[in-house]
């Protein structure tokens, strides 16, 4: 019906037929979540932007073969997760660290804002310090709101592996953050 908002699968069908406006709509709809996931996984905005760009270009290239077996977002997450893991491995091979999270200087005169920023930086540092797979599982679970099954689909890991990674990730974070000024205990 005219005026209806097309769902992601319909946009993919239109994109496969060469409608570039459909790609623009998919990007507008999902880029924030893609950027957020990539940034939380890689810890740097420039890398997150590159990953988002490549992810949507892959969506474009794959549109002709797209089969809506799973939700579009799960498929998109899978592309993003793979790109992030590839980037991390590439950096590990080259000896370039991603873990150098710089804590921004607190310049706000307002103590509340400064404290909020400090807590955010502490959490970011703790999440960034998790092993690769734990970090991906945690970001998808805590920040993207995916269920265990959806995480398994997006990563290709088994359901029990996802559960085990989540348990270890939350335990590690509890331990790390409990040592900090803003205790979680």
């Amino acid at each position: 019906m005219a005026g209806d908002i097309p769902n992601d699968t319909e946009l993919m069908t239109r994109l496969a037929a060469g409608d570039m406006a459909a790609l623009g709509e998919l990007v507008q709809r999902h880029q924030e979540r893609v950027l957020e996931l990539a940034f939380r996984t890689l810890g740097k905005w420039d890398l997150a932007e590159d990953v988002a760009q490549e992810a949507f270009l892959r969506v474009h290239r794959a549109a002709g073969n797209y089969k809506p077996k799973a939700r579009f977002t799960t498929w998109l997450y899978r592309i993003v997760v793979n790109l992030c893991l590839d980037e991390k491995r590439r950096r590990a091979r080259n000896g370039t660290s991603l873990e150098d999270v710089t804590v921004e200087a607190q310049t706000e005169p307002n103590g509340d804002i400064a404290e909020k920023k400090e807590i955010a930086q502490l959490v970011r540092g703790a999440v960034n310090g998790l092993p690769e797979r734990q970090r991906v599982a945690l970001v998808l679970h805590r920040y993207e709101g995916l269920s265990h099954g959806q995480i398994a689909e997006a990563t290709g890991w088994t359901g029990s592996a996802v559960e085990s990674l989540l348990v270890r990730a939350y335990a590690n974070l509890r331990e790390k953050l409990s040592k900090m000024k803003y205790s979680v205990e």
Partner: protein
Amino acid sequence: MKHLDEIELIEFAAGNLAEPRAAEVREHVAACRECSRRVQEMGKLWDTLGRWNVEPAEHDVADRITALAHENRAESVRGPSIFVLRKKFLMQALRLAASVLIAVGLGHKLGESSVTGKKPQIASSQEKPEYLAALGLEWSSGLAWLVLEDNPDEMGGEQ
């Protein structure tokens, strides 16, 4: 009821557990001091993690993506690249070469018998192989060895 396992506790504290299981867990937590403490701790961790906010809106890449996608599309409309064409040509050439080799090989084998006048020795022995005799079968055709495992010539040589 035994203590909650860790993954269920995480989901309960996060508010992801579905009913009726959530009600059972609530009941247990209310009665179990240990699980109550663990749920509280997990709830605090969940909230603390939620304080890491990010602002992806400041990093809009839509224009970059659209421009690159248009560029890629224009390239694909222009046709495959020279590299792709070269690869296709190479595959075709390899197939052709393989066909020629097979044809020459077969021709050589067939031509060998017609030029020299030698017939293939497949029918030279009409002796009944031992294993057929053992099975009580008749040696009905000179070409029958083709469908059997052993060449009757070889069998004869062994006798």
